[in-house]
């Protein structure tokens, strides 16, 4: 287990280095930040001064080298636009994004899995068909459109929910969270639902497919023959067996929701990292883009690790030691 964790750590460092190089070169290739930052009336001295102040006057490989050396010391550089450490900008906004992502994922799990089970157990009833039809909508409606419709209905027409922003926050273990206040929950409801829609549809489909397959297996028949209640058969035996693909997808989706909730965040003006990323790309604020993607890669690696551990808990056949264990 420990050896496995170390090997994963080594792999992550290589991934991080490769990714930072790609992003560095990529953002460099897009354009020159000076063109966007400096006032167009500025003369040559001012341009040269700005380039020097931001370290953009040096060749790319020197810039990358400086970045690597500083990154090794834990400094990912200052934002070109805001002149504050890029990592501060990200950490400041990360709680908002994590809260939104977790809320959306939770909604997806809590609503999606039960609905999927029902649809899987009663595939030909009108309930089952209705759920499946709903999940198709969840897949195919574009997020920005659903977001705007939600705002139009709940904020503009009914006036129940605020159309944008994050509500009042309270500090929980040093992290500002909004789900503990009524105002915060009201602000969170629509963006979370908007972001959850696609995961919801995904959960329904996965659970339904798994259930339909599992229900025909011998162990289910055997459990029923043994006289177990239907609730126990489904709640314990079926559910546990269909969880592996679902956990995998939840892990993958959680990573992507954290990293790329851009559309939802910009429609609801949610002060999260997605909005920061898109603004930074538009302004060619390279330190922020690089630092953000570093954080995301780290998070994704972490989530995948947790998913792997969960596999081993859910399925005793899975051993984290990998090849050496199998050889014995």
């Amino acid at each position, binding site marked *: 287990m420990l050896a496995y964790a170390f090997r994963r750590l080594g792999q992550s460092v290589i991934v991080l280095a490769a990714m930072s190089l790609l992003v560095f070169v990529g953002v460099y290739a*897009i*354009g*020159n*930040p000076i*063109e*966007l*930052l*400096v*006032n*167009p*009336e*500025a*003369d*040559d*001295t*001012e*341009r040269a*001064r*700005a380039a020097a*102040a*931001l370290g953009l006057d040096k060749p790319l490989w020197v810039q990358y080298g400086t970045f690597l050396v500083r990154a090794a010391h834990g400094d990912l550089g*200052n934002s*070109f*636009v*805001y*002149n*504050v450490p890029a990592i501060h*900008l990200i950490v*400041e906004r990360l709680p908002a994004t994590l809260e939104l992502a977790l809320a959306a994922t939770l909604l997806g799990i809590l609503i999606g899995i039960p609905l999927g089970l029902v649809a899987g157990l009663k595939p030909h009833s009108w309930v089952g068909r209705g759920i499946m039809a709903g999940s198709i909508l969840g897949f195919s409606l574009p997020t920005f459109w659903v977001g*705007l419709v939600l*705002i*139009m209905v709940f*904020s*503009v027409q009914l*006036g129940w929910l*605020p*159309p*944008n*922003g*994050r509500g009042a926050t309270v500090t929980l273990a040093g992290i500002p969270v909004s789900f503990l206040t009524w105002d915060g929950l009201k602000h969170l409801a629509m963006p979370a639902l908007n972001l959850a829609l696609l995961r919801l549809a995904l959960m329904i489909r996965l659970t339904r497919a798994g259930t339909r397959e599992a229900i025909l297996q011998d162990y289910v028949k055997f459990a029923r023959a043994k006289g177990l209640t239907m609730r126990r058969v489904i709640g314990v035996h079926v559910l546990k067996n269909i969880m592996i693909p679902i956990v995998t997808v939840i892990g993958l989706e959680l990573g992507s929701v954290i990293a790329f909730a851009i559309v939802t965040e*910009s*429609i*609801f*003006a949610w*002060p999260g990292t997605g*909005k*920061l990323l898109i*603004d930074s*790309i*538009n*302004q*060619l604020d390279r330190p922020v883009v690089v630092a953000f993607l570093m954080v995301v890669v780290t998070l994704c690696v972490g989530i995948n690790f947790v998913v792997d551990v969960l596999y081993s808990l859910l399925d005793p056949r899975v051993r984290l030691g990998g090849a050496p264990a199998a050889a014995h």
Partner: protein
Amino acid sequence: MLRMFRIAALFLFASLAALGALGRDREVAIGLQAPVTSIDPHYHNLSPNNGMLLHIFEPLIRRDPDMKLTPCLATSWKALDDLTWEFKLRRNVRFHDGSPFTAEDVAFTLKRVPNVPNSPSSFATFTKPIVDVKIVDPYTIIFKTATPHVLLPSDMAAVYIVSKKNGEHAATEDYNSGKAAIGTGPYKFKEYVPNSRIVLTANYGYWGGEQPWDQVTFKILTNPAARVAALLSGDVQMIESVPTSDFTQIAKDRRFQLTDKVSNRVIYVHLLQESDKCPPYVTDKAGNPLPKNPFRDPRVRKALSIAIDRDAIAKRIMEGKAVPAGQLLPDFFFGTSKKIKPPKYDPQQAKKLLAEAGYPDGFSLTIFGPNGRYINDVKVAQAIAQFYSRIGIEAKVQTLPSSVYFTRASKLEFGYMLLGWGTESGEQGSSLRSLLATHDPAKGMGVTNRARYSNPALDKLIDEAMSTLDDRKREALIQEAAELAMGDTALIPIHYEVSTWATAAGYRYTPRTDQYTLAMDLRPAR
């Protein structure tokens, strides 16, 4: 029973809403389209910052809604000779912390401006011409320049005065946190959350009189649809930059009101004339480069200009929220010429000019433009392409995100480029100098002349104008320069953008031509 309940609930709801409205009467929320990147007034020369910080800080001279210079922290100013300016400062002005404003603060500000670390776009452009500052008494200060600097008063409108007492050791972070964000303006700093919101409270001791609001919240709502939704739902009482597609809906709705004003931003076309070689993305109809640069021929430039139906673009694409342009600024600005009219749409004449220039069958070109930088920029580029097809010019359109577009345009990679220019000085001379003087960035001439247009006669006029302190003489020289440049179709002006605001009923906004959204200009309607 159910109906009774509903009515009761409705009543309760309505009275609660009314109560809420009473308590918040003197609070207002405003939706902005672009983020404010700093509260340090000398860190980033960027329009959204400059507008926002005008609430907290003040310059010596400010601009009225038409961008005319009016006294602010200075009550009067005059040039003692070609190189010496004297400013008389306002008495009895206090900073937000109660300390008095004096000439020391002005001298401190001028010293700080060029020395803000890591500034991505410095305000030093405005202070550089000043080589020496002399404090005569606490309310009189003298600036010396090395060469005659006609834009000095205009430059002083861009430099916001900070307090020496609070600013001596303050860095940009101290302004962002509010510690050093202490100015003389009508509003005090309360909270700044980058990319999200800025909250200001009234400065009750403001020298300019009481403000109608106790608290103003600015929300950054970059998504246009979200901005409109925030207004419709009552979350904000005013938004700037109303999307064109929502004009009709909001105009019809009696709960809201649209306000607009022509801006200082002109949308124009630069035609690359760097050398005699055929510019990039310009070919004959078969796709081969032309033997010479057609854009160096004034007849071709004129043909490309009069082939565009500016009225149609303003009316149909911009829904009336644009004014056809014939020069670089609307004609109420300093240095504009009433003699210059927007070129008249005349495809027949354009065809004739092309034939005279040796292109009877036209040629092909690609119109390059940004994507989402200016109002409806993509549609404007497409419309121009269609007008060109009527005079036998085959035009393709390619639009790019700003981050890519401006870098490539500055590297002269495009032959035909759609661009925009906002004149911050409020006088046409500085625009002519930046856009059309011969490219010589070391001297500050033609710094944004991406066409590399060069006309020695024009250079001479601009040079002379920009060193003539006498306003009347300078204005005449700038007008002459503008007439010369526009007569030669040095660039193709398309239209002036019109800025728009929408307010909820009960609020009245006095629109500004510099596109700033200021709480000072928003008043209750009664």
